[in-house]
């Protein structure tokens, strides 16, 4: 067939991060692209597939005697999100209105207000099963990073629900509260209703950073509202922490579910979070240039977009360090001292092998994004001093769990001694509850028994393997343990020493 018998197909997807696949009559792919494709094909039947994650739309095409141009509105995809915002398939206007109202009218207010937290749990897939109620957050508390309770979340949302009866707010399908807080790092403790026994963790914990007021591009000093949205699955009644979405909005304006670019912003954010969570921009989640620009530009009104966007920049095969530095410097001005921004600075210095300025970065509290946290733990192995000894950031590193893109860890054991008896580690050689050989003495101060237990299991497994392999030259060092379990060096060394004692 000559070129004159070929016809051109041009298609633009919306969002621009969607993958387009053109397929022939047997459904074999003949052309692929992110956001846009342009190709020439002979006459015939084709299907054009637009896809993000498990969402896809298809358009059947008959190519005859003319070129075909498919515009973005013909291939439009919407994706679900816990954030009640436009451009998602799960927008609920009453939820959006409630979030906006609560972000401007806190349940607990102080004057002057230097920071605010809005936490909303939503049913986003329709209500098949019981709708969300205040008792779904029974046992959830907000603590400071010393563990002292600041707020009982269930009590707060009950009060908000009662107050909402006085307001023109529809309360179906959401529970929420908002409160003014001093800037700093707080911890939300989530009970785990599925905990199988006393020996497994009954709480998981998540850091919430209320940033200090920062300077906007206009030079104003702006306090921030941290908006946290969580989806509760009505069928399983579980809060899906992994799908949590976090936004930062200027306190005076509060949360708004719509602006001219909210559709693209949300889609870009979803793509970027997926890329950051997976640690690699695969073809499907690769961010288009447009998406990246939206994230980096809109950080001025929502610095969380900039934090996620900066991580996504680091995933590019060729990092644009000039852009990265500009973004991080702007973020430092917007949300000074934010641990995620400090972690980004540290990652930047480390990746560029640049020492200047590195020494003033000391992380005390865990960043909100797991990608930030894991990076600083890795860097601590290369050069000590990034994580403050004895800080919360050091203590919980060994208890991190995988929970989507967010930093979460299991709460310290309620009874560390029980865990140690289980492992014969109480130091009373030969007299432990289960018999057998006991190793080591009292647990070192500041290291959770669960971390010691994990380390013990790992070491035991490796030793058993070495025995089965007949390998007697196995030389284990603390860094092997640290890398395997994600422990910072100080913790790994102390645990290694403890477990290596005769």
């Amino acid at each position: 067939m000559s070129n004159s018998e070929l016809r051109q197909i041009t298609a633009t997807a919306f969002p621009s991060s969607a993958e387009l696949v053109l397929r022939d009559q047997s459904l074999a792919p003949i052309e692929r692209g992110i956001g846009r494709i342009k190709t020439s094909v002979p006459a015939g039947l084709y299907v054009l597939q637009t896809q993000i994650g498990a969402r896809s739309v298809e358009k059947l095409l008959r190519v005859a005697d003319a070129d075909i141009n498919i515009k973005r509105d013909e291939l439009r995809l919407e994706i679900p999100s816990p954030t009640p915002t436009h451009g998602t398939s799960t927008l609920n206007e009453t939820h959006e209105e409630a979030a906006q109202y609560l972000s401007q009218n806190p349940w607990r207010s102080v004057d002057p207000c230097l920071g605010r937290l809005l936490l909303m749990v939503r049913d986003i897939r329709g209500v098949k099963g019981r709708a969300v109620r205040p008792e779904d957050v029974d046992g959830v508390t907000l603590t400071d990073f010393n563990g002292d309770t600041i707020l009982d979340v269930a009590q707060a949302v009950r009060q908000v629900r009662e107050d909402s009866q006085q307001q023109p707010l529809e309360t179906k399908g959401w529970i929420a509260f908002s409160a003014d807080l001093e800037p700093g790092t707080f911890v939300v403790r989530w009970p785990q209703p599925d905990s199988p026994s006393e020996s497994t963790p009954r709480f998981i914990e998540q850091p919430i950073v209320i940033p200090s007021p920062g300077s906007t591009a206009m030079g104003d000093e702006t306090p921030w509202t941290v908006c946290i949205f969580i989806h509760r699955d009505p069928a399983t009644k579980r809060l899906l922490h992994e799908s949590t979405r976090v936004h930062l909005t200027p306190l005076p304006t509060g949360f708004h579910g719509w602006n001219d670019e909210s559709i693209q912003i949300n889609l870009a954010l979803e793509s970027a979070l997926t890329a950051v969570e997976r640690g690699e921009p695969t073809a499907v989640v690769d961010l288009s240039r447009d998406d990246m620009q939206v994230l980096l530009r809109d950080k001025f009104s929502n610095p969380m977009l900039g934090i996620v966007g900066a991580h996504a920049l680091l995933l590019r095969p060729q990092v644009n360090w000039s852009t990265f530095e500009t973004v991080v410097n702007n973020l430092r001005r917007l949300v000074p001292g934010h641990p995620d921004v400090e972690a980004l600075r540290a990652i930047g210095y480390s990746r560029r092998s640049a020492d200047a300025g590195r020494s003033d970065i000391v992380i005390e509290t865990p960043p909100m994004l797991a990608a930030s946290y894991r990076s600083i733990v890795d860097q601590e192995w290369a050069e000590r001093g990034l994580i403050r000894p004895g800080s919360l950031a050091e203590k919980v590193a060994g208890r991190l769990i995988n929970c989507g893109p967010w930093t979460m860890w299991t709460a310290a054991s309620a009874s560390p001694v029980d865990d140690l008896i289980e492992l014969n580690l109480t130091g009373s050689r030969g007299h432990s509850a289960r018999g057998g050989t006991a190793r080591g003495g009292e647990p070192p101060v500041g290291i959770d028994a669960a971390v010691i237990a994990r380390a013990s299991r790992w070491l035991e497994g490796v030793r058993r393997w070495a025995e089965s392999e007949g390998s007697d030259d196995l030389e284990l060092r603390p860094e092997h343990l640290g890398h395997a379990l994600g422990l910072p060096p100080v913790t790994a060394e102390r645990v290694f020493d403890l477990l290596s004692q005769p």
Partner: protein
Amino acid sequence: MSDLHFSVSIGINDYPAFDDLHHAVRDAEEFHDWVRHPQGGNVPDANAKLMSGPDSLPDDWNSLSARPRLDEVLHHLNDFRKQVEEAVRRDPDAWNRTRLYLFCSGHGIAPDADDAALLLANSDRENIGYNLPCAEVREWFQQAQSFQELLFFADCCRERIPGTPDSWLPWPRREGHNGQVRWLLGCATYFGDYAHEERREDVSPDERRGYFTRALIDGLRGAAADKFTRRVTAHRLADYVQRRVLHATAYRMRPQRPTMPSAENFDICQVDQVRLARFTVTLVFPDDYQGRVELVKDRDVETVQVNSDADREQSITLEEGIYQALSVDPSEGGDPFKRDGGKFLVVKEGQRVEL
């Protein structure tokens, strides 16, 4: 015969601590059949291990007696590793002929965003760590460079369970120096989502499969092959399985979307002929339509006659693909098929096509 190809297939229907599955063992058996078939994986019988638990459950079926267990699976993988490393030690060129298949079907979790971990039979909610993390095993072998090619498939859920301990293998890292390892990791579903089994009432229970395994086996047997070279490559297989499973589960609130990353595109097998899947679908013609209809796909034409109201819904078995329904008799009066001008997709069994 691919004498340095090895395979471990695991299928688990019965878990003392979890709901029983129905087709996981048959999934593994079918993969085991394909992998040993001369027109399939062509793996020698001695190099292929099938692990599927006892045929009948003993009276003391519990987490202590349940099988297969993690250590058994690791033992077989380790055994095959030693065999292949010994062969490569004798003849370094032999490394270019080495491949390891790992197929898992059963309950599963996702300990990491890029992993799919099969829960072994003795796992339960208190021992969720008894799992086989396929991506981690793949990474380990990639670093050890024992095999040149790794083809791992996991037809299991990828639920995120808060509190799951980080996956670990009791194997210290090994740094191999044989060369670049090619790999494909097929996960039945997206991170955090479920993998499902077919619920087709028209098919006997023994013939049902997990959606992923069904698509995988059909793809390997030729549905994913290039029509000119007849080769099934990593990329073509990944595309075929993803599309097929997405279509089959599109009716669900959360459609199942396999993820199948690979290190590079490489040949998996060459089939004797391309065999597209065939599905029985119901065509629904417009009210009052009567006449002869041609269903056109490439150069193939199927003819359907609609003579009365009773013919308005007709079942027909067609190859997967894009069709156009053309009214040829009568040919006057414009296009009778208003929906997409008579164009339609055939992508799954039991589909209803409104023309």
